[in-house]
């Protein structure tokens, strides 16, 4: 898309500056986490892994990481199961009749989580789900559904519906068709949705602030307390680990897309 038409110098400069602005805070954390000082700063004399060591040695941080991991895993399973089935149903049934269902599934992307959080706080109080593993899994699972519905719908849009009709025509039951014909084709889409649902739960804080307190204490919650109480370099080490994990998951998703587009 050039045709002798290129952006001017000013716009180019602005774009580079913006890119720098986007990437700077994420990259500056790495040297800060390697500081040899006892406070948040750039390394003065040498690089040091002491803050990573203190992180791993701390049972509080380890506990928070484990809890976050299990919650993310369980809520991803929930979101993938419900979201995939829903996307399949919407795909096969006519657009018009499933319009309301689709809109409903996208609501968590539109409504601010603070509104959902205060609603859940009250709602879970009555169901005795506050500060419970199950409660947080349900909340994260339900809000993870949109990501799965979107990625699976995208995968299904590229799937030839005649394959499904052929399978059914040759006598395959619905479950057989799903298992052997449709699922293998949309597996990358499902996995992609799973990755985003996992990141969503792993990073989620607003809901956790309201519906969890002592029993359930996730990693974002621990970071939140850390930021509000004491800013020590161990926080930078956690931040680097989190960024690293997100990058790995995103690269996995990128590889999936490559494989799918062949």
């Amino acid at each position, binding site marked *: *898309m*050039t*045709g*002798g*038409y*290129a*952006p*001017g110098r000013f716009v180019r400069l*602005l*774009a580079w500056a*913006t*890119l720098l*602005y*986007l*990437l700077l*805070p*994420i990259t*500056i954390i790495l040297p*800060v986490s390697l500081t040899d000082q006892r406070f*948040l700063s750039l390394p003065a004399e040498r690089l040091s892994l002491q803050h990573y060591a203190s992180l791993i040695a701390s049972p509080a941080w380890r506990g928070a990481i484990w809890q976050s991991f299990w919650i993310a895993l369980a809520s991803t399973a929930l979101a993938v*199961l*419900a979201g995939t*089935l*829903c996307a*399949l*149903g919407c795909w096969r*049934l006519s657009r018009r009749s499933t319009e309301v*269902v689709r809109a409903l599934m996208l*609501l968590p*992307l539109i*409504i*601010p989580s*603070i*509104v*959902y959080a*205060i*609603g*859940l706080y009250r*709602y879970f109080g009555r169901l005795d789900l506050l500060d419970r593993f199950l409660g947080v899994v*349900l909340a994260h699972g*339900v809000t993870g*559904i949109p990501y799965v519905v979107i*990625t699976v719908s*995208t995968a299904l*849009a590229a799937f030839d519906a005649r394959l499904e009709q052929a399978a059914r025509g040759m006598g395959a039951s*619905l479950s057989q068709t799903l298992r052997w014909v449709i699922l293998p084709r949309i597996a990358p889409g499902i996995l992609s949705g799973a990755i985003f649902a996992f*990141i969503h739960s792993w*990073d989620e*804080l*607003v809901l956790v602030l309201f519906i969890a307190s002592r029993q359930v204490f996730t990693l974002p919650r621990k*970071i939140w307390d850390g*930021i*509000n109480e004491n*800013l020590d370099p161990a926080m*930078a080490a956690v*931040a680097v680990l989190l*960024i690293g994990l*997100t*990058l790995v998951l*995103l690269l996995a998703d990128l590889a999936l897309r490559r494989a799918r587009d062949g």
Partner: protein
Amino acid sequence: MRRDLGWWALLAPAFLLMTAFYLAPILQVLAISFTEPTPGLGNYERLLTNPAVQRVIGTTLRICLITTLISLALGYALAYVIALASPRARRWWLLGVLVPLWISVLVRAFAWVTLLRRQGLVNQGLQSLGAIEAPLALVWNETGIVIGMVHYMVPYAVLPILGAMREIDPRVLAAARGLGASRGTVFFRVFLPLSAPGLAAAAMLVFIVTLGFYITPAILGGGKTLMAAEWIKLQILDLVRWGLGAMLASVMVVTILVLLGIFSRVVNLRRLFGAGA
């Protein structure tokens, strides 16, 4: 119809989960705003009479507007360069825009605190360069909030704008040039109008998302500048004034849905939430 029954059943788990554990709690918030502390429109009356409520709404709208404008400007410049780049360069630019999109909000807020606080890296750097005498107040105020929020929103602005720009036929631009238009004229008379739908979609998306922001303003605002979400939290967790908190939450949801409703008449929403995304 009977044949479709199995397919309808597939919708059931998601539908039931969504209704029981998403829709119900949100509808309850709406209900609370009319029933507590006393049934009626008392909470909504505060919108007109209570200066504290009005101040929060004013602050929120102001910060959201500023954030939206800056995000659009930066996002447009980025999208413009990306759209006109070679396919190879485009992939790298896009990576640079998309990676921040998925990095935890909390991690980013923490990084900004590290950079912007009084003894932070930016102030230290500027001081050692001799550019400033005393450290600048870059965080724990409105400036900090805007810096953090714009950082979050730029990628959201880029995507719809880029989508619209890539639909522009390059031959139109070449034709305009060939007919003697200057570069400025081509941009303002051809390129900008053709990319306007993307700009509008981006404005809507950014504004809606910023309205409900909680974490970034809470951390970078330092408790001094209250935006709507933090104020709601304060009412409910600290002051236990459910009615008032639920009222502002309801106003927020209704505002967002109304904006989306108006907007869906102008631009195809699928572009935003996409069959693709």
